[in-house]
């Protein structure tokens, strides 16, 4: 009879020893998938236009981003261009693209894309000036950044 009397009272506590493992797993996932923003915006954060037909840009290292938008400084009414961390002029686009090309292998150069992150209220004229400059140096692949929209 004594065999049956051994039953313990109450539930054993749930072991939390594996909790750190689970949290670490999540931590590593986020550490790997994080991309830190490397450029600091010198212009007012552009509101991108929205579009249905957007295409994702893979291969981040092949993308050079050109920002177009309003200046933080209210006295400057027109559109300003930002390349890397600096406000730039249209004529600087050329050197910006050349500098980005330097970092790549020869055979990757034709796949380089210039991404326009432009405010929807900026003018087509500014974009056209940049595009003309890009044509001059044979950087022909471009992409107009837009937020995807589904409706």
């Amino acid at each position, binding site marked *: 009879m004594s065999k049956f009397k051994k039953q313990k009272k109450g539930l054993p506590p749930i072991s*939390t*020893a594996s*909790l*750190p493992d689970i*949290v*670490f797993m*999540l*931590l590593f996932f*986020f*550490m790997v*998938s*994080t*991309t*830190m*923003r490397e450029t600091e915006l010198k212009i007012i954060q552009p509101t991108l*236009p929205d*579009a*249905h*037909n*957007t*295409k*994702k*840009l*893979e291969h981040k290292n092949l*993308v050079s*981003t050109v920002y*177009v938008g309003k200046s933080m400084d209210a006295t400057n009414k027109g559109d300003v261009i930002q390349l890397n961390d600096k406000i730039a002029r249209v004529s600087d686009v050329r050197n910006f693209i050349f500098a980005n090309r330097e970092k790549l292998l020869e055979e990757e150069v034709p796949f380089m*894309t210039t*991404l*326009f*992150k*432009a*405010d*929807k*209220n*900026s*003018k*087509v*004229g500014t*974009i*056209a000036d940049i*595009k*003309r400059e*890009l*044509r*001059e140096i*044979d*950087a*022909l*692949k*471009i*992409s*107009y*950044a*837009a*937020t*995807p929209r589904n409706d």
Partner: protein
Amino acid sequence: MARRVLPEINAGSMADIAFLLLIFFLVATTMEVDGGIARKLPQKQPPNAPKPPIIKDRNVLQIAINRNDALLVEGNQRVDVKEIKQIAIDFIDNGAREGNKGVGTCTYCKGAKDPSSSDHPNKAIISLKSDRGTSYGAFIAIHDALGQAYTVLRNRVSMERYGKSYEALIKQQKSDKSQKLKDKIKTIKDLYPEIISEVEPTEN
């Protein structure tokens, strides 16, 4: 003799440390991948380049947008952005050419075969003219509408040929890198090639 047992290190706070780091990365993460409308600029022509071939007027759909973001199609029709998609579809899919014994006829077109509109999808050029003062948002809206028009047509022809929409084929490409799928996508793209020409914007 009493056995001395080393006290176990308390690992209870490890979870707290890990959580702290986890929350930091959660906040700092930007998951978004840049998306955009892909276009290709035309190559720069050398000064002594031969004259471009003459293109028949009916094969060009002229869309103009002025600095007040108002649209004009074919130089006489004032339209809204919402109508552009249908106009483009009708124009591209027209397929009026009756080739010699069926050669050169667009067999997959479902358009009206209007003789005053485009001959064949691979001849149909959409020309987009903007003003320097046009807002970028309106300009992108037109590009988007044109892109959608091509997608609709490509989806249709892909459905007929492969029983799957063009967009589904593109999605499938993420997991399936086979040459067969690539060829399929290329075939569809060639049936309805995107020919969009941007005219240098006018000065005021």
